[in-house]
């Protein structure tokens, strides 16, 4: 496969802070590459460099073997587009938002109408053309942003945490759209994520990034099997904990992740491992539930984030777990900061890395 875009020895600084340090990375034509790393690791800056919105302080970027410079970046930007982590919609209706890039490229009006209609169908927003984009929900706005990028049919599509603040329904729609765009339009996609689950299922390759450096690049299976060796990288990724595994006589493994928190997982492991639990697999209750879940912990709510129809909570049980529940449940349970709660999850829902 030919490299679509190459970053060679890229360093980027903002003031005194080195955000990217000697990064070398290639993206092949037609692949989906996930940039996996914690917040502040340099993912967004790397994406902006690939979108030719920023220029490196040292190093070179080549797109289809042509060096990208300040002079040609405006022309190069027609080949690559970025969907930002924070959803941005223009102060106009959905149609004009999606058509923006096409109008900038002076595509004829009749063609624009047809293309926009198809894109809105793909993101399941048919009939939304005349609605003011800013009056849509967060999930709908993000779908508008994706449609707006897809209609441009760029060779490279960059997504910064595309589903970070979305409920499962919207996240599912977006993941399907991403997969379709790659499959049908052969668009190369680079997506930044700190969601382990997403990084495992969607991409063809994963690049681990931490503290401004790419630590490893490879296929998902390869990366995740080696991940325990890179534990330090993932201490900050949500619901990922490193610990010492000890096999039990019942055919399971207890992983001591510190602060008196011991996570039980299926299968037998020994030694240093990293474990990950999907926030959606964790059940929250106000009292201890009698259930088949092997992992039950008591803790306090330390953070609450409103995601529209969902609420994201951080529960400190000795280690901080991120839990996702519906807003309805949140209201019915009358939860608030510092409330004492129980979290429970099955041994089979824990992924050992």
């Amino acid at each position, binding site marked *: 496969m030919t490299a679509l875009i190459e970053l060679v020895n890229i360093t980027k600084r903002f003031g005194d802070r080195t955000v990217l340090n000697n990064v070398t990375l290639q993206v092949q034509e037609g692949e989906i590459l996930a940039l996996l790393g914690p917040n502040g690791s340099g993912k967004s800056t790397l994406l*902006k460099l690939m*979108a030719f*919105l920023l220029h490196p302080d040292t190093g070179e970027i080549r797109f289809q073997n042509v060096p990208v410079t300040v002079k040609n970046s*405006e022309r190069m*930007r*027609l080949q*690559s*587009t*970025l969907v*930002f982590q*924070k959803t*941005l919609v*223009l*102060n106009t209706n959905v149609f004009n938002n999606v058509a*923006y*890039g096409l109008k*900038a*490229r002076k595509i004829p009006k009749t063609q624009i109408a047809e293309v926009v209609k198809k894109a809105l169908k793909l993101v399941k927003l048919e009939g939304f053309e005349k609605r003011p984009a800013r009056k849509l929900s967060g999930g709908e706005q993000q779908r508008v942003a994706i449609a*707006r*990028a897809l209609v*441009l049919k760029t060779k490279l599509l960059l997504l910064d945490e595309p589903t970070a603040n979305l409920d499962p329904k919207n996240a599912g729609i977006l993941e399907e759209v991403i997969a379709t765009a790659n499959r049908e339009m052969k668009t190369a996609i680079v997506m930044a994520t700190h969601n382990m689950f997403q990084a495992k299922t969607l991409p063809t390759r994963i690049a681990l990034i931490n503290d401004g450096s790419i630590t490893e690049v490879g296929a998902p299976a390869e990366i995740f099997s080696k991940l325990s060796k890179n534990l330090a990288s993932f201490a900050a990724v949500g619901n990922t904990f490193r610990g010492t595994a000890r096999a039990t006589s019942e055919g399971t493994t207890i992983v001591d992740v510190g602060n008196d928190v011991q996570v039980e997982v299926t299968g037998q492991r020994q030694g240093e491992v990293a474990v990950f639990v999907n926030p959606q697999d964790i059940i929250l209750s106000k009292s201890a539930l009698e259930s088949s879940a092997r992992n039950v912990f008591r803790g306090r709510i330390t953070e609450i984030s409103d995601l529209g129809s969902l609420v994201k909570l951080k529960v400190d049980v000795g280690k901080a777990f991120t839990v996702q529940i519906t807003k309805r449940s949140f209201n019915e349970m009358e939860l608030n900061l510092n409330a004492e709660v129980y979290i429970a999850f099955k041994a089979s829902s824990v992924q050992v890395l």
Partner: protein
Amino acid sequence: MNQILDGIVKAFQLIFSGDPTVYGAVYRSLLFSGVATILAVLWSIPIAMQLTLKDFHGKSIVKGFFTAMIGMPTVALGLILFLIFSRAGPLGFLGLLYTPAAIMLGEAILITPLIVSIAVSSIEAVDPEMMNLAKTLGANDSQTSVTILKEGLNGILFSNVAGFNRAIAELGVALMVGGNIVSAGAHSTDVLTTDISTLTAQGDFATAIALAVILLLIVFGINLIVFLARNPRVLIMLGRTPQ
């Protein structure tokens, strides 16, 4: 109190009688201030764009200067311009003093800091990533600038209206560089504010009040039209009369 009521009554008499002196002053007020606003907008918006979208040394000083000049006393500016446009002044050769053009230019200069400052605030209120959004969707530099302007349009329109309000209500510049020349046809330079000032000095309070009422009606009327244009729902609500 009687004088004020007489003034209000006279105002409506003058309006409905079609008094040419009054209508002449109204026309000149609207014309001079309107042209001044257009001129000021033409150079203020690009200045505001430079101050927000570009980085250069001394940018904060320039911004601070414009903010400080908002409160420029009109008579002080009028005096400065008088000295510049007078025969002995550096631009005396243009023969602008005591002409409508001098008033339009003077008022345009007066309202520039106000329009620039409000426009800068409006553009700065636009999400800073909007520029990157426009660029990543393929917009070139001028398309990006237009997009940012559109996003800040409400504030920019407000800056224009605020500029016009200041221009039509000011006295100092019109008096100092216009000379308040009355009944001279196309060369007349009296406007509502200068006429109000002259009539008051002459003791004709009723007519002065009448002109003040007309000036107030013009300012309120224009601002109301702009408000309704930006908030059409208010019109719809007003149109729904209870059965």
